[in-house]
């Protein structure tokens, strides 16, 4: 949506105003989208190196190693670690039982110790040289170690474990005050208080920056913001009073007298208990107002990237260099693939036939398709100089889509895609046409594509105005 450059501009401007009292963390899955990145040079590795370089310029306090960061192998991460990148993880070990990253970092902010530690989820890529220890084996002793150094400060966990595991940790370890998770498919999660742990995370692909604003008390326990709680209690009391008055106004029903009495008693009890709670909360609110609160309090915000937000100039320069490197690398890959095809005489293994072949029987539809933006999708990439970008190409070519995902193709296959399949052709929406072209009656294709086919490319990140029904009308071919 906004890109790394806008994100960096946002972080820089937010933290510039608050350098003395702020902590900047990332809970992982920073570098890769795929779960396994092949060894050797690739676009994904070039992009990951650029992200590391850019992140280094803004002074992160801690970045957790997530399973998607391990997709490129441990060596890749260790190179950036040696270059002073603040990776942390308390459960990634080598075969000699040695930790590969710092388990935690501690920062003093206004005389308060803040310790940030990380637990990494297991990657899908098989890693021969490292293993991820289960969190249960290390968390109790690790927390003891942290508490020895940081007796009354704040403890933050950056976790790429599963939702279930995070919930269990929050329930069992109230020493952890904040848990920032990194679930790859979740959106923004407003801080949820479990026992004494605030569990939160931001939406994927860096579209939002989370901000927790913490006012310290002395007890290291989260308060529930007594003013708000007081207002809620008073509302509940008002509702009970109203119900009571309504019931008391009515004459006692003759048949249901026992039930009527029971309801009155229950409401009276609730009223008494609420009144007592309100009195306690009033005292607490007074104490908070006078600055003598014992509990910590928080407010939160998710700050979204906006399209009109300026770019960060230094990041733009680095991305420009990255794009040039990607073009060079992918041009070489494309050349090698094409040369190989000429030598072996092998034809493309793709079974798509292309819009021209479809047009032989469906001429009216082909003419209509040529007037749509789908037909110009590849040109859009050419004008942006992105026609050798393997991240962008799949949505600008005729691709087979099943269950909302592209058929897996190696980068060199995507780069050397036949010209007849450039742009989003008939087969992207209606399915592969090779069998249909030999026997249309037996092998029928889909007339109207399901929304998951469209949403493979028209995601929130790339098209925030996409409404399936409206857009379908625009690309629906004429009948006949």
């Amino acid at each position: 949506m906004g890109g790394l450059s806008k994100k960096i501009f946002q972080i820089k401007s937010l933290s510039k105003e608050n350098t003395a009292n702020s902590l900047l963390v990332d809970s992982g899955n920073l570098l890769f989208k795929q779960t396994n990145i092949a060894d050797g040079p690739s676009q994904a590795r070039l992009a990951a190196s650029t992200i590391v370089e850019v992140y280094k310029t803004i002074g992160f306090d801690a970045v957790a190693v997530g399973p998607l960061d391990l997709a490129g192998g441990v060596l890749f991460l260790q190179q950036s670690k040696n270059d002073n990148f603040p990776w942390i993880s308390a459960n990634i070990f080598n075969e000699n039982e040695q930790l590969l990253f710092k388990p935690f970092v501690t920062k003093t902010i206004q005389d308060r110790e803040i310790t940030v530690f990380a637990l990494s989820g297991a990657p899908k890529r098989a890693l021969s040289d490292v293993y991820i220890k289960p969190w249960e084996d290390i968390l109790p002793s690790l927390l003891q170690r942290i508490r020895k150094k940081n007796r009354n400060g704040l403890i933050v966990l950056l976790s790429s474990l599963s939702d279930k595991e995070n919930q269990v940790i929050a329930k069992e370890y109230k020493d952890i005050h904040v848990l920032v998770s990194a679930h790859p498919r979740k959106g923004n999660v407003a801080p949820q208080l479990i026992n004494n742990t605030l569990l939160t995370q931001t939406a994927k692909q860096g579209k939002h920056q989370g901000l927790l604003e913490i006012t310290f008390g002395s007890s290291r326990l989260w308060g529930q913001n007594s003013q708000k709680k007081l207002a809620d209690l008073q509302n509940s009391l008002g509702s009970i009073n109203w119900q009571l008055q309504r019931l008391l106004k009515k004459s006692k029903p003759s048949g249901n007298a026992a039930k009527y009495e029971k309801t009155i008693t229950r409401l009276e009890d609730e009223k008494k208990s609420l009144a007592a709670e309100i009195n306690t909360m009033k005292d607490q609110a007074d104490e908070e107002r006078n600055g003598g609160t014992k509990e910590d309090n928080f407010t939160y915000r998710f700050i979204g990237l906006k399209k009109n937000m300026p770019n960060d100039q230094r990041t733009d320069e680095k991305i420009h260099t990255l794009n040039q490197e990607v073009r060079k690398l992918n041009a070489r890959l494309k050349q090698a693939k094409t040369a190989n095809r000429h030598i072996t005489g092998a034809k493309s293994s793709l079974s798509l036939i292309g819009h021209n072949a479809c047009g032989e029987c469906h001429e009216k539809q082909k003419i209509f398709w040529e007037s749509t933006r789908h037909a110009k999708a590849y040109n859009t990439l050419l004008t942006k100089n992105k026609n050798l970008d393997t991240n962008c190409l799949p949505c600008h070519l005729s691709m087979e889509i099943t269950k909302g995902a592209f058929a897996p193709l190696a980068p060199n296959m995507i780069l050397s895609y036949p010209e007849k399949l450039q742009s989003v052709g008939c087969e992207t929406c209606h399915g592969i046409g090779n069998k249909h072209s030999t026997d249309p009656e037996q092998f029928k294709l889909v007339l109207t594509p399901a929304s998951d086919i469209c949403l493979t490319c028209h995601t929130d990140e790339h098209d925030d105005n996409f409404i399936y029904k409206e857009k379908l009308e625009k690309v629906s071919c004429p009948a006949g």
Partner: protein
Amino acid sequence: MQKKINVVFNVPVVLMLAILYLFASHCSALASQTEPLLIFYSDNVQGETEPCG
């Protein structure tokens, strides 16, 4: 005569400035004590560098 006037005029001004300075530093000390901690957090950038176009 001129010197006397200067001394009479300057003493309260200096005193006032001193009091102002003390008050300002007290306020700034108070403000820094109550300043909240800000945690900026993110996750799942997933290799995203820029939109395709």
